[in-house]
């Protein structure tokens, strides 16, 4: 491999995760940090650390010039972008390469291509990936929209071509609402993404979110099976599983194979995820988007396949071929990940960046906690609220749920409210245990079951 050192252009738990993977490969690690992250775990663990600016992300973790300058001064061979921040910024990937270093990811061309949701949908269709009924490409006028709406019916989603990750989406339930929202959505997309382009897709109600992990070396592409991330709040995933909970086997195969076909079509290099909706009532899967980064929920795939995805993506970036073939990828058991956030579930998930008091982390077979926490750590308020991810493995889903109950009971983060109580309630909920969920399940559940039960317990207290 022609990479001997790597700069981590991220923070938080994923920075720690990347440093561990790089160290396991014997690489020198350099961590960039903002003024607010000088005492972060990633800075402590890395061989070297370079300050890149003020706490605001725009002045540090999103500052391309500062990160490139840090990478040059540290003399690294490669840059790992993690997720979020600049991970799917094609210009950043290009800037890293232009500065003579390796970008650990699929490169600016593929990011640009797949990051444009309209073009990604076209590639998906050309690769035989099933797509939701909707527009073929961008829609710019109301008369173009009217033709599409005849085919889709209502409700429909108006999506920003440059959006993604749940951002820039509006739902119109009828023609009047559509006429009101369409120009609004375009103006908003222009302001948010610098691109007012829109496309239209039928809104699939009560769908499950299923996604396929792929790995490619530019020639060969393999899949590492699928994950399910149906439990979401405000379009943010809260709880993820591998494999998907309730999807017929023939559809799983279609899903995984179509993700590989898409990856091959673009000569994909690195780790990527092809996201789908699964309409359980109609037993259909539909393409949503491709994420050209390592994802937050990657550990559930690692737990069931034994593949270290972060190490694999570094090796591929270092010029190696895939170390495994499709036939080597096998699934054992079931894994579940809970996102532990610095938010108070009893107060409408109000974020609370406090100081960590005592910290007790569950240990044992089939339990993993990816985190940046340590005792006494002052959580900065400037970034997202993810503190860590509790991941468990069991020989089957009931065993994984049982282990999750134990692990949650053994996880104690003192000094601040976290989403641990939410997960404790979810892991004991009959619908969650039975796997009867969809992407709208959690918000409804919070309204009906969780909020009322926390209110009741507060009244008793």
């Amino acid at each position: 491999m022609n990479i001997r050192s790597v700069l981590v252009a991220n923070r938080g738990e994923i920075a720690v995760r990347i440093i561990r993977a790089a160290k396991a490969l014997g690489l020198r690690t350099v961590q960039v940090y903002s003024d607010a992250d000088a005492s972060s775990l990633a800075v402590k663990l890395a061989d070297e650390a370079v300050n890149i600016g003020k706490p605001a992300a725009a002045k540090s973790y999103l500052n391309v010039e500062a990160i490139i300058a840090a990478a040059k001064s540290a003399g690294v061979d490669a840059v790992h972008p993690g997720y979020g921040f600049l991970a799917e910024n094609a210009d950043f990937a290009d800037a890293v390469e232009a500065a003579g270093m390796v970008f650990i990811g699929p490169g600016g061309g593929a990011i640009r291509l797949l990051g444009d949701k309209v073009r990604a949908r076209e590639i998906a269709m050309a690769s035989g990936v099933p797509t939701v009924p909707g527009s073929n490409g961008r829609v710019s006028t109301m008369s173009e929209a009217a033709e599409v709406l005849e085919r889709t019916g209502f409700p429909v989603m108006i999506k920003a071509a440059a959006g993604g990750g749940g951002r820039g989406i509006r739902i119109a339930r009828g023609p009047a609402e559509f006429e009101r929202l369409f120009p609004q959505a375009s103006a908003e997309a222009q302001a948010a993404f610098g691109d007012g382009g829109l496309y239209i897709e039928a809104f699939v109600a009560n769908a499950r979110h299923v996604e396929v992990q792929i790995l490619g070396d530019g020639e060969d592409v393999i899949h590492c099976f699928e994950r399910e991330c149906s439990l979401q709040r405000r379009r943010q995933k809260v709880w993820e599983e591998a494999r998907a909970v309730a999807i017929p086997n023939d559809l799983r195969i279609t899903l995984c194979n179509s993700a590989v076909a898409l990856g091959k079509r673009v000569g994909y290099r690195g780790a990527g995820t092809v996201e789908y909706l699964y309409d359980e009532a109609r037993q259909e899967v539909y393409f949503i988007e491709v994420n050209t980064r390592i994802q937050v929920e990657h550990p559930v795939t690692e737990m069931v396949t034994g593949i270290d995805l972060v190490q694999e993506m570094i090796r591929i970036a270092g010029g190696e071929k895939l170390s495994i073939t499709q036939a080597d990828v096998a699934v054992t058991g079931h894994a579940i990940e809970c996102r532990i956030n610095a938010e108070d579930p009893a107060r409408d998930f109000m974020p609370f960046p406090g100081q960590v008091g005592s910290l007790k982390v569950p240990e044992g077979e089939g339990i993993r906690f990816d985190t940046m926490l340590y005792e006494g750590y002052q959580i900065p308020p400037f970034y997202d609220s993810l503190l860590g991810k509790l991941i468990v493995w069991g020989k089957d889903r009931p065993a994984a749920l049982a282990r999750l109950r134990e692990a949650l009971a053994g996880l104690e983060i003192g000094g601040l409210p976290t989403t641990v109580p939410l997960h404790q309630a979810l892991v004991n909920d009959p619908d969650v245990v039975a796997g009867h969920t969809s992407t709208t399940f959690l918000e409804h559940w919070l309204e009906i079951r969780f909020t009322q039960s926390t209110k009741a317990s507060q009244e008793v207290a």
Partner: protein
Amino acid sequence: MSKLEIRSPLPGTFYRRPKPDAPEYKTDGDSVAPSDTIGLVEVMKTFHEVSAGVSGKAIRFLVEDSDAVMAGQAIAEVEQ
């Protein structure tokens, strides 16, 4: 003449305007009522309005727009 302090309920980044291109909620010397919004605190990528909580005839800000603030830090004072 007594002065009351308005403290930030949360740690984060304090903003004096609802949006970068909007006018300030309040400028120095404005009168305030308890329910008046005087700014926003951005914490962990979410925005929370800060209301005055007190009434007074003139507000004076103690922090600049986009300054980092601590929970409990005085962000403005109000002349009664």
